[in-house]
């Protein structure tokens, strides 16, 4: 390997653990994303109807209803409640994502994630540095706006322009001009704002963040004492601000679990860490190990 290649994000992990282990969660995630998409496509493309519908609502094997709680909430804001199956679907999805981490939806299911991850990857590879600034809290404002706006207009507001549903629906029901909106998101992330769409604007992610605010399944940093400050996890993380309190919080008495709701449980940090600092763990398993005090004293717990 050349020296230049070794400076690439994750190359240490590849050298230490092998390519496969250094991409384990990424591969699992992509496999899940495409498997879910494949299940949806099996009907229209092959006539095998395991799943009908799309991410807004689907009906699997004529028994399992799944409803997107955010779309259902917008609809509820306009004064319309779903039928029984729709409500059952909301409950199932809400409970599931509460358990596995709200934004697991973003990194394991959402089709736009592939688009923005690709933009993020290309941004790194092309060395594009400049990025417009927009606070990460913007998405919560957009979320509130879509809910209030739905109530005011009587229209399921975000679905008018939601690139997530447009892409998913487009792939399954016919794309039309939706590709242009997806391309716009890609170019926006690539040239205008690093991690702009998922990290700052998308109210779907914001909603799932709130849904998983107290999710039991979280990424943890049990081996944080072994961190060699290579910064690869920060480079690769779509929400790097969530890592620091846990990874560098030992001195401030912070536990090792990444508690921030913005974390998407994508597991990419686990992949790229050559020192195996990260792993999936339980939220409750958060007691700071006794005698661990080599962290960054500047980072107080609860910040971010």
């Amino acid at each position, binding site marked *: 390997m050349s020296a230049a290649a070794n400076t690439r994000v994750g190359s240490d992990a590849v050298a230490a653990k092998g390519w496969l282990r250094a991409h384990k969660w990424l591969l699992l995630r992509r496999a899940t994303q495409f498997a879910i998409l494949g299940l949806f496509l099996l*009907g229209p493309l092959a006539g095998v*109807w395991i799943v*009908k*519908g*799309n991410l*807004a*609502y*689907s*009906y699997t094997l004529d028994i399992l*209803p799944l*409803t*997107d709680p955010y*779309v*259902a909430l917008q*609809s509820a804001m*306009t*004064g*319309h*409640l*779903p*039928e029984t*199956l*729709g409500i059952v*679907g909301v409950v199932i999805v809400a409970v599931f994502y509460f358990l596995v981490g709200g934004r697991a939806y973003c990194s394991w299911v959402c089709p736009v994630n592939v688009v923005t991850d690709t933009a993020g990857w290309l941004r790194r590879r092309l060395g594009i540095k400049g990025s417009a600034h927009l*606070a990460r*809290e*913007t998405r919560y*404002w*957009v979320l*509130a*706006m*879509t809910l*209030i*706006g*739905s109530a*005011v*207009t*009587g*229209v*399921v*507001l*975000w*679905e*008018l*322009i939601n690139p997530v*549903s*447009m892409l998913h*629906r*487009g792939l*399954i*029901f*016919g*794309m*039309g*001009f*939706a590709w*242009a*909106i997806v391309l716009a998101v890609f170019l926006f992330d690539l040239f205008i704002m690093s991690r702009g769409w998922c990290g700052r604007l998308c109210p779907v992610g914001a909603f799932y963040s709130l849904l998983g605010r107290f999710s039991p399944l979280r990424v943890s940093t049990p081996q944080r004492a072994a961190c060699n400050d290579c910064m690869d996890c920060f480079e690769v993380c779509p929400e790097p601000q969530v890592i620091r309190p846990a990874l560098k919080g030992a001195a401030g008495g912070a536990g090792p679990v990444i508690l921030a709701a913005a974390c998407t449980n994508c597991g990419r940090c686990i992949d790229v860490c050559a020192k195996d600092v990260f792993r999936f763990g339980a939220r409750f398993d958060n007691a700071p190990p006794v005698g661990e005090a080599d962290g960054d004293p500047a980072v107080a717990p609860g910040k971010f």
Partner: protein
Amino acid sequence: MARNAPSASTPARSKAIARRQFLFDTARMACGVGMLGLGLGLYARQSKALPAQALRPPGALPEDDFLGACIRCGLCVRDCPFDTLSLATPEVPVTTGTPFFTARKIPCEMCDDIPCVKACPTGALDHGLTDINDARMGLAALIDHETCLNFLGLRCDVCYRVCPVIDKAITLEVLPNTRTGRHSMFLPTVHSDHCTGCGKCEQACILEEAAIKVYPVALAKGALGRHYRVGWEEQKKAGGSLIDEESMVELPDRLPEGMTLPGHYDPGSGATAAPGAVPAESQLPGAAAAPIPNAPPGMGGPAVPSAPPGMPGTVAGPVPSHPPGLGGGQ
């Protein structure tokens, strides 16, 4: 935030600066997102303007409610056995992701079990709709009398024939063909009491551009004033005349200038036009061939000449003398 000015000398001052910064940040966020919301809201308003030719599936709530209830899942599209429905893509002038169909392309086949409604998880398609004949996806209107072949005096009848609610939703009303003077015109007439708006008639219209089209009910349907009572309906309900017929004053018939109706008795003047005394050019076309009613059908005159026995559309009974659906009684 991190932008606390280093010049902040006292804690109180730095606190004030932080508060200012917080207010500015909040205001900026509220304004930025508010503008986005304003744009989206205006777009939402536009999106409520469903094109007249885009029809919603059976049982769809009124458009205003539909856009709040429909979650764009496409289950209705999937369960439609005839691929009638599709979800709107962004470039189509129908709210993105919502189901619609275009009658001229693929009309609704009016399945008895209404699978699209059953599939809907939200009630955007009203689950109370259990009889497809109660669906009101739109209302057919024979919009172009100039090109409709039946209006030209031919016997196309295709819209009438394909109508799933034949003889109720579309009937053939027979009028004399004043152009030839010796034929009848069989005019397809839509009755809103029974038309479901399925669009079979529009799809089947043999013209290059359909003369009969399905429109949203609000566009296709007129409405009588609420105070309006149709005399003959009231008469029927009351079982007799509602006025004192004895004191009725007969007014002279008002015919176009110079015209006489041979053999016609005018109660107003008490005169009968002599059969042979009329200049030929002032006669109504075809007047010699058939007796002429003393008033146009539909205006209280006698029943129009009935169709020969066995003609479709006329077997059910005498032709009504006014457009059905004009419910006089409320």
